[in-house]
């Protein structure tokens, strides 16, 4: 986030080179920096788009490629390994414009789209420059001030306790200033001196009482302050976690594709904890220290401005060093954070995957990997410690120097009679108090920095918007079950197409089978139907309404999907079946379970708790086939208008599969059903079969139609049929012996 900002200004040497080519009424529209030059070395090279031409410029070598927009037909950013290239298709053939590393892929892809649109007059550029956000990557910037403002917004509902704790803090700081003052009075007025040979014993009593009162009040207020601030911090953290979790739930699947669960967990658990430390403890020390610094600063100026100026000498030194220190420390702490996240990511992937690790005897390998990551983390932490050790002791040293100066100058003043002893002692004790809060801030700075880092990390996630958004006019309605898929293109990465121009209309109540080699995009299509992602092009409609205009809740509750690897939750079998419907009656659960062949294994004698048996984390205590059957029962119970079975019976044996499908035959009646299957024999009952290959629909028809045409389907079918026959005769052969 902190690097790679897009350039804001075109360097003057580039402008000069480009201007020479430009006509009088020509204007620069956009420019973009690439990091690979025309020879393939890492150097600056600029892409400049004007109202009339596209130019690639290397200011160092004066290398120029100038292509008039008039002759451009289209533009494309091609992907290669480690780099890419912007290519213009012109009337005289292709023109390779410039290369760029993968860092700028996204920028140049959009630049290509932009040039394309300009060349095809889809956007018109008026006399001035234009800004079309769609065509440029927005590099997001998270400003510190933004993060703080956002954190403060959580404090707002609790402003009463915040104000209370501030008042208490102010009072304590005020109280802490009293003792030094009393000491000055003690020295100058209570004790005998040349002007007052007997002293003032009565005043001593008052001083003692005053001191006692101050300390008592201070202790009591200290307790009150800690309590209010700690409570405030807990409350804020609570609402922070809740809103963070809600936000996570609202994110589309593409968010989870990008972030590993380890990283998300770290944000949710430990980052919120660090932020809590800041809100309940760090902030309180910070506020008090700053108040103390201000209060003491005020006091020393009222006592003796000349000495006060000397005392403040270190301040400019600190102010000068601070910004560069902050910048470096921020980078280091963010690196620490990433390394820590690496470690937890590793643990999150290997601990649940222990069985795989053991199967491949990779314990040592995993151990070494872990040690490596821990070493990285160790080094990173050490670096930030080193940085702190460079900065803070230097500050301390400068402040000690100024103290010595005060002793010297103040001491001489006392000798010359310009200053009383009491005033000097008061002053010196204020100074020693003055450095206390500075020390506190420096000591706690590392924690404060890491909590700001954490806050930034949480903020980063909260700022992200789900790719799948409900339109304001979206509505809920009861589905009939007609599905229309029109010209749909999709890619998880928008430039790597997974689905190509899919067109398919499914009538209400129709049973559609989808077959095709793995990786052909079958699952992806069902994900689009559930609107886990939005198509990059084209539209999907249910009963004539675009998915984007249907309330997500309404959409997903009326489509039942059974995935190849169903997700079961920690809890009982009954809980997992009834997941889609909270208030399911027991007979409904049993009925759905019988339909999906769950009943037999749920009621097995080995399960004393029957349907109340715990399935374990992720259903780990059931077999793959049992898990699939529970998922089917769940879909049956939710009674959806549209049912999607995505290789839902791939892990059950043929016999059970047949039984489930028999049950399904009743169930699919009256509802639109999409069955994705590997075993083609299970699809013979489908009204139509759709054959997919490489993200396209290649054949559609009934089983017998497709067999007649002799395309991919008939090949797949014959191959499977022969294999099954061969297997059966093998078994027969074995039995005969």
């Amino acid at each position, binding site marked *: 986030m902190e690097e790679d900002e897009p350039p804001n200004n075109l360097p003057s040497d580039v402008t000069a080179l480009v201007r020479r080519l430009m006509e009088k009424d020509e204007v620069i529209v956009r420019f973009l920096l690439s990091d690979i030059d025309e020879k393939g070395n890492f150097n600056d090279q600029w892409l400049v788009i004007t109202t009339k031409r596209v130019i690639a410029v290397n200011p160092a070598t004066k290398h120029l490629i100038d292509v008039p927009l008039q002759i451009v037909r289209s533009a494309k950013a091609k992907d290669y390994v480690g780099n890419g290239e912007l290519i213009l298709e012109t009337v005289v053939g292709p023109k390779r414009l410039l290369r760029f590393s993968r860092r700028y892929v996204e920028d140049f892809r959009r630049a290509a789209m932009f040039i394309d649109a300009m060349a095809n007059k889809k956007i018109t550029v008026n006399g001035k420059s234009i800004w079309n956000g769609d065509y440029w990557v927005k590099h997001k910037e998270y400003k510190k001030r933004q993060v703080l403002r956002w954190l403060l917004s959580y404090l707002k509902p609790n402003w009463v306790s915040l104000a209370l704790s501030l008042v208490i803090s102010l009072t304590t700081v005020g109280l802490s200033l009293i003792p030094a003052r009393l000491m000055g009075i003690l020295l100058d007025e209570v004790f005998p001196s040349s002007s007052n040979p007997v002293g003032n014993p009565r005043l001593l009593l008052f001083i003692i009482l005053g001191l006692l009162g101050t300390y008592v009040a201070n202790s009591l207020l200290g307790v009150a302050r800690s309590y209010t601030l700690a409570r405030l911090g807990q409350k804020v953290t609570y609402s922070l976690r809740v809103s963070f979790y809600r936000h996570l739930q609202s994110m589309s699947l593409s968010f989870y594709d990008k972030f590993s669960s380890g990283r998300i967990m770290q944000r949710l658990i430990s980052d919120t904890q660090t932020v809590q430390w800041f809100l309940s403890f760090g902030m309180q020390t910070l506020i008090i220290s700053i108040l103390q610094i201000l209060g003491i600063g005020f006091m020393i100026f009222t006592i003796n401005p000349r000495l006060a100026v000397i005392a403040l000498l270190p301040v400019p030194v600190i102010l000068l060093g601070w910004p560069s220190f902050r910048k470096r420390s921020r980078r280091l702490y963010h690196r620490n954070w990433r390394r820590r996240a690496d470690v937890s990511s590793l643990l999150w992937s290997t601990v649940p995957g222990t069985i795989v690790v053991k199967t491949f005897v990779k314990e040592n390998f995993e151990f070494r990997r872990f040690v490596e990551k821990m070493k990285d983390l160790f080094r990173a932490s050490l670096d930030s410690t080193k940085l702190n050790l460079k900065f803070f002791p230097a500050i301390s040293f400068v402040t000690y120097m100024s103290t010595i100066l005060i002793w010297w100058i103040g001491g001489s003043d006392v000798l010359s009679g310009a200053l009383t002893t009491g005033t000097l002692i008061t002053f010196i004790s204020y100074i020693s108090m003055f450095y206390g809060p500075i020390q506190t801030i420096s000591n706690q700075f590392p924690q404060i920095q890491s909590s700001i880092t954490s806050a930034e990390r949480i903020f980063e996630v909260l700022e992200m918007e789900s790719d799948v958004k409900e339109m304001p006019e979206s509505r809920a309605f009861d589905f009939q079950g007609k599905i229309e898929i029109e010209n749909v293109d999709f890619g998880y990465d928008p430039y790597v197409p997974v689905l190509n121009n899919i067109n398919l209309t499914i009538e209400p109540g129709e049973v559609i089978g989808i077959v095709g080699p793995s990786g052909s995009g079958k699952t992806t299509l069902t994900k689009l139907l559930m609107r886990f992602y939005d198509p990059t092009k084209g539209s999907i409609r249910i009963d004539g309404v675009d998915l984007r205009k249907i309330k997500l809740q309404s959409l997903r509750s009326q489509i039942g999907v059974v995935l190849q690897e169903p997700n079961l939750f920690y809890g009982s079998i009954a809980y997992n079946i009834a997941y889609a419907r909270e208030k399911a009656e*027991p007979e409904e659960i049993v009925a759905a379970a019988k339909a999906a062949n769950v009943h037999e294994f749920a009621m097995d004698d080995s399960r*004393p708790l029957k349907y109340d048996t715990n399935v374990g984390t992720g259903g780990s205590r059931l077999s793959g086939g049992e898990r699939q059957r529970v998922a089917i029962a769940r879909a049956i119970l939710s009674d959806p208008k549209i049912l999607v079975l995505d290789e839902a019976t791939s892990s059950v044996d043929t016999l059970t599969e047949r039984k489930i499908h028999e049950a399904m035959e009743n169930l699919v009646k009256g509802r639109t059903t999409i069955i994705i299957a590997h075993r083609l024999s299970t699809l013979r009952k489908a009204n139509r079969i759709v054959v997919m290959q490489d993200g396209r629909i290649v054949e559609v028809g009934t089983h017998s139609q497709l067999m007649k045409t002799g395309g991919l389907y008939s090949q797949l079918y014959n191959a499977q049929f022969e294999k099954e026959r061969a297997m059966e005769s093998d078994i027969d052969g074995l039995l005969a012996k």
Partner: protein
Amino acid sequence: MTLKTFIEKLNIVRPEEISICLDEEKNVLFLRYKNTLYQEVVPERPFPISYPEFVILKDSKGDDICSIKDIRKLDDKSRASLEKLLDTLYFIPKILKIIRLEATGDRFEWETETERGKRTFTTRGRRSILFLGNKMVITDTDDNLYQVEDIGALDEKSRKIIQSTF
């Protein structure tokens, strides 16, 4: 619509449609249902913890005859016979009070007072404890089962013990 057909297949009976009596010798039931007398009928509880009142009756061959949604609605004699048999088939005593719970690593030593008297037992691992809403099921190291019917209804001390441990 079609889930309904499956529900119909469960044959959920109205309480007055059946009468049940216990064959003490064989530990099976006699069932009179729709003018037929079934012998050697065995009851089954699909949800022994979360919905114990729901019972399926099976004939001697193991086929389902009918289901009773709430056995508490049966006439007194039938209910008593059925519950007596169920009590032996599904022995899951209710814990009334937790006197002591000591954890050493993964191992828990329980000292409890159940509806069937005092009982001390051991469980191992987090998995031996299952929370179902407000209920709690405990499987001890010998595969005996215990349940807490409603954690909220336990006495203060027992509740505290559970809360501070899980």
